[in-house]
Structures are given as C-alpha cells and as structure tokens.
C-alpha cells in the first residue's frame, strides 16, 4: 500500500489491525537517483496470508521530511524511528525520545549516511550530544557500565538509575559495533555481498545468510532444489542447537553455577566441531549460497551427526536434571526479569523472548518458509515471562531441534538428488523483496531491492535481537542490580546483529 507521509500513521493503524498484525520492521530508502524522493517502508506480519504486508510512504523530492510519528501508536516503532532520524534525517513529529541511536558523538549533526549523495567512505567528523536517560532525586544514584565489559562480551553502555539495590530505570546505548554494512552493500552484486552478509553476526550467520538468499531467490524464476532445502534446514537447526545448548550453560554464568557452565561449554564445543565437519567452518559459513548450497552432506557425515547428537542429548538431559535440583538456583531465576505478555505484544517481540512470555510466534510455523511445513515439531511456549521461562523455552526447543535434525537426516538418506544449487539467471530489478528465517533468537528479516544494473540499491537487515532489546530495559525494572547479568544472559541478544 502506498500512502502520503501525512497518512502514514493512519494507514499503519489500519495495517496493524489493533495489534493483530505486529510491526515487523520499519526502514527508509533513498530513491532520488531514480527521480523520486525519500521513502519509509513499514512491514507487518500477516499470519493469515503467511506474508508480510508492505506499507510505503513516499516523500516527494525536496519536500519536508516531517510526518506524524508511529511510536505513540505502535511502541514497537520507537527504535526504528530513531534510526530513520539518524540515517535519513526523517523527523517523526511527536516522538517521545528522538535522541541519536546509531551514530554516536564523533559524527556531526545533520549527517545522514544512507542518503545516496553521501559517499560510502565519507569520513566526516564532528560532535553531537548523546545524553543518557536517567532518573534523579534524593537518594538515587547512577551506575555506568561499559562499553568495555569485564568479560568476553560485545560492547554496549548501560546506565542504571538505582534506588539502593533496586534498578529503577535502565538506558542502553548500543550500536557501538556499527560498521555501516547496509551502506557497504549498496552497489555490490549479490555474489559480492554474500561474504559480508555471512559476517553481519557470528552466532546468527546461517539465519542472516538464509534470509538474504531467500530475498534474492524471490527475484528469480528458478526454484531451489529440494535437497538444498534439506541441507539449509539442517544448518539452521544446527545453529539453533549450538546456540541454545551453549546459552543454557551461559545463563548459569549469571549466577556462578560452575558445573553447568562447564557442561554447556563442552557440549557447545562438540556441536561447533560438528559444524566444521559439515561446512568447513565452526559457524557454518560458506554453506548457503543464493540458489542452493555449496556442498553436500554425505552419509559418513550424517552418521557422525547422529552419533554426536546422541551423546549431546544424554549430557544435556543430565545438565537440565542438575539445574532443576538446585533450590537456590531456582530461587534466583523464578520471577526474575519478567516481561508480561502485553509488553511482548506491544514491543512486537520475537523468538525465545516472545515465546517465554506466552506469545506463540515462530516464523517456522507462521510463515512456513522452506520445508518446515512438512516437518513435525512443536512450538514451545511458557507463560511466566521470567528467566526461568526463557530457560525452559530453550530446553524445549533443543528437544524439538533434535527431533527436526533426525527427520532431516532420514530425509537426506532417502533423497537421491544430486543437484545442490540452481542458476538464478536474470534477477528482477527495482522490485522490493524480503526473506525470513528463524534464528536462535527469533525471526530474522532481510529486505532487498536491486537497481537497474542488478546491483544492490537497498538492503535492510532486521535481526531478531532488534525488537527484543527494548524489552530487556523493561524486564529489569524493580529487580536488583546483581540480577542484571542473569536477566541479560537469559535474553542472550546479539549486539553485532542489530548494530550492523
């Protein structure tokens, strides 16, 4: 649907249908090189049609970039609109918090890098303000943490407003690892873009690549071979397994529960060695390509996957058993870091975060991408919304993923196809296209448009962590500050994915 800027808010209200179709993504595009102006795209999940509804507002060239903000209507739009303000200079009127998001202090005001007239390697320096949001008053104090943390984790700055031990408010300053990937992709062919897409994020490598490849394949008339889909799905589930198993152990690092940390780390290592066996890389890079996959999975490898997973399943069951035996561990995780179902809806949360708050959403079921419709697995949800619920969802999903991998192995054994990829031929240009896949953290969406020459004109990457980050700042409110690492780890959100 195409609307005028002043009607965007009203149209978005209709598209979201009272929250039934949550906001999936919101991003800008610069169409001035084709004689247009700037544009804003909004994507909404449409579970009935198993599709994303696209709403576009066109701002004619040289017209004002003001429009009535969506955030006060759809809270999920808050960060997207801050990003639109940074990257393109749009002004969402009435936005409650229009501080910078992506571009920190070393960039000048008025610098909007995703506009086409800005060269990709523009080195322009300046100084802009970035004020942290805090609460003040008698007896309140602030605790600043990061961007360089004490452990081996990604960079982010957290500012806690404290009332004694209790966290009153948390403001997160992220996007430290912003590398300008969306701009770097512009002007590249799909093949040239692939190594960069694989390196947006380590832990979501497969999901990012698969979403991108699906967006590309929608612009082609060719059909990806069935065997390639079996191998892709296997890779996606293997990615979920090594993440979930490692995260189960790592969450326990938030409370210093050492035996479980060790067991989780050991299992994760075995699973990553399995990744190398299949793809030649411990993060499964180099396997998925537009049109299919680059290498086959042979019988010998299937056998080894089966053997290793049998062992992993056994040790993981022990691990879970030990966790639920510890009363003091349960005491730390139960009712800690609660996200209520309404909040999850309002923020359009995805993945483990959403499912642990009772929201039954999973793009493998809702969108049925690839071959998931013919596979038997359950959608795992928990009503609690606390750390315990997020651990339980992961444990359930490990069980379901193991089930899926077994089905895929038997399907691969029965499938005698030799074709692993298809030539995509000429790709359709000047047509928006999207791809979706379910990463370990939730659904991952890539938007793609090619220019007349078949090179990337606009690529937008909405990783699963993007809608879930704001929920973390809500979840911690009222809990004590020593619980923050635990709550943070229970979401296990990527920084690299959202920073791009």
């Amino acid at each position, binding site marked *: 649907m195409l609307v005028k800027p002043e009607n965007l808010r009203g149209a978005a209200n209709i598209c979201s249908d009272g929250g039934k179709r949550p906001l999936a993504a919101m991003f800008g595009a610069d169409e001035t090189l084709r004689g247009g102006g700037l544009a804003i795209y909004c994507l909404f999940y449409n579970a009935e049609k198993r599709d994303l509804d696209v709403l576009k507002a066109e701002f004619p060239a040289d017209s004002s970039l003001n429009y009535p903000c969506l955030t006060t209507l759809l809270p999920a739009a808050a960060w997207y609109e801050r990003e639109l303000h940074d990257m393109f200079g749009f002004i969402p009127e009435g936005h409650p918090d229009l501080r910078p998001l992506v*571009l*920190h202090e*070393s*960039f000048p005001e008025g610098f909007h890098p995703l506009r086409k007239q*800005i060269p*990709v*390697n*523009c080195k*322009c320096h300046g100084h802009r303000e970035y004020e942290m949001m805090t609460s003040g008053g008698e007896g309140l104090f602030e605790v600043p943490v990061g*961007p360089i943390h*004490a*452990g*081996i*984790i*990604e*960079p982010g700055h957290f500012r806690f407003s404290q009332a004694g031990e209790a966290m009153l408010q948390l403001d997160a300053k992220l996007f*430290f*690892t*912003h*590398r*300008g*990937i969306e*701009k*770097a992709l512009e002007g590249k062919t799909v093949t*040239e873009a692939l*190594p*960069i897409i694989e*390196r947006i*994020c*380590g*832990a979501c*490598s497969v999901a990012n690549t698969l979403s991108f490849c699906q967006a590309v394949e929608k612009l082609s008339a060719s059909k990806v071979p069935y065997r390639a889909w079996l191998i892709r799905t296997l890779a996606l589930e293997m990615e979920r397994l090594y993440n979930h198993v490692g995260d189960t152990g790592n969450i326990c690092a938030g409370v210093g529960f050492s*035996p479980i940390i*060790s067991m989780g*780390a*050991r299992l*994760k*290592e075995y699973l*990553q060695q399995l990744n*190398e*066996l*299949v*793809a*030649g*890389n*411990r*993060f499964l*890079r*180099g396997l998925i390509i537009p049109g299919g996959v*680059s*290498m086959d999975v042979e019988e010998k490898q299937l056998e080894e996957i089966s053997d290793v997973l049998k062992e992993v399943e056994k040790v993981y069951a*022990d*691990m879970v*058993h*030990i966790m639920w*035996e*510890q009363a003091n561990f349960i005491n730390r995780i139960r009712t800690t870091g609660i996200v209520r179902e309404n909040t999850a809806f309002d923020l359009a949360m995805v993945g483990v975060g959403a499912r642990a708050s009772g929201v039954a959403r999973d793009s493998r079921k809702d969108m049925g991408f690839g071959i998931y419709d013919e596979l038997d697995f359950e959608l795992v949800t928990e009503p609690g919304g606390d750390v315990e619920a997020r651990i339980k969802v992961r444990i359930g999903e490990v069980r379901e993923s193991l089930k899926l991998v077994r089905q895929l192995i038997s399907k691969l054994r029965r499938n005698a196809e030799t074709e692993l990829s298809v030539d995509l031929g000429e790709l359709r240009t000047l047509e928006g296209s999207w791809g979706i896949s379910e990463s370990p953290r939730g659904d991952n969406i890539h938007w793609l448009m090619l220019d007349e020459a078949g090179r990337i004109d606009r690529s937008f990457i909405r990783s699963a962590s993007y809608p879930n980050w704001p929920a973390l700042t809500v979840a911690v409110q009222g809990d004590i500050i020593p619980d923050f690492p635990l709550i943070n780890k229970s979401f296990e959100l*990527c*920084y*690299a994915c959202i920073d791009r």
Partner: protein
Amino acid sequence: MLKMLEAIFSGKIATENIDVSGHKRMRGTLQCNGKCSACGECAAACPVQGIKLVGDMPQIDYKKCLFCGKCVEACAAKALSHSNKECLAEILTASQAEVSEAVTASLGRSLHVRHLDAGSCNACDFEMGATSNPIYDLHRYGIAFVASPRHADMLMVTGVVTRNLEQALRMTYEAMPEPRLVMACGACAAGGVTYGSTYAIVGKAADVVPVDIAVPGCPPRPSAMIVALCAAADMLKERM
C-alpha cells in the same frame, strides 16, 4: 545434588591436546600445486583483495583472508586448494620467532589478557570464550582473561575498529601498564577490510594502536588463538 556429584566425578577428563588441523572440509591455509596458469582469477574473486600474483604464483595476505573459498572456486587451473591446517599467528614486532616452537616451549610464564571488541561480528569473541572451555582449557598454559586493562599484559582486539569504538580502544590501551602487547585477532582486526571502507569504520587495529601479533582466520579457531597466546607469553618474557 547426587546427580551433580555423579556428573563431576564420573566424567572423563575432557581436555585435549591442541591440534592445529581440523576436519577434512575445514578451510585452512591455501596451497598451490604449481600448475598455476597465472590467470589472476583468484585475485579477482577475492572479496578482500588479499591475493597478489607474484611471478607466476599467487601470494596470499593471510591477515586479510576470510578463508571463504572463493579463490579456490575461481581457480581456472584447479591449482589452488584449502588445506585443513590452521594459519598461524604472525609476529609483527619482535625478532621473527618461530611460532610453532612456542607451543612446546617451557611453561614458566604467564600472560594476562584483556579482550576488546572493537567492532566484530562476535564470532571471534565466541571462539575466544571457547578457549576457556574444558576441551581447550587455556588456563593450563598460564594464560588468563582479566576484567580490567589495568591488570592486563596484553590487549586482544577483535573486529574492525568502528568510529563508535575508536575512543574506547585508545583509552583501554592507555590504561594498560608497560610492558604491554597488542594482538589483532581475526581478519577484521588484522586486515581491516572485511566490510570494505565505510563512513563508520576507522580500519584495522594497527591504524589506532601499535600491534605486535596478528592472528589470521575468520574467525581463528580456538586452537589457533591458543598458539598465538603462547607465542605472546614468550614475547612478553623477552620484554620484561
């Protein structure tokens, strides 16, 4: 409780010797079998411009290499292939010590390391975390990760340096006591061209702070990191 004790005591020792080769499919160092036709297709296919033809043979800049396999695919003479051997760290400042010797050298040393993510995709960071798991058990070499740069002998940098983290990298380096080392870990920190040059990227780690050791890989495997860390521990001993 019983189950926990059982799990702790019944398990075998998981720690293994460090092996610098991997599974058959692993994309490690590149080898050319001499049938090179000097067509230059490999150099053209490289996404990070890490290959130069010198004479009739490709020369690979491992600091930039993503080990993605595009050059092997492109090689017209089918001369280029990946071995399953890791590419070992390159010492940039000290006298050219043999890195492989470092693994077998005596253990009378220690190294305290502060990690700094300068803009990575988190793959290097995850692998760095994996060096402490029971299989690799980094602590047996006298190497430990510490919480503050003030406690550190070495800064281990991952990722291309972004504009948003340039100041943090400088300040962390300045906070460290002398003698100090810097390790650029992975293709981004060592080569700096993984994503090309953009408005948000400053470059490789060496563009901001002096770098002593570069570890190739995208990401380097935990074993390659441990070899590099052992070499660094030896370098530090020389500087004391």
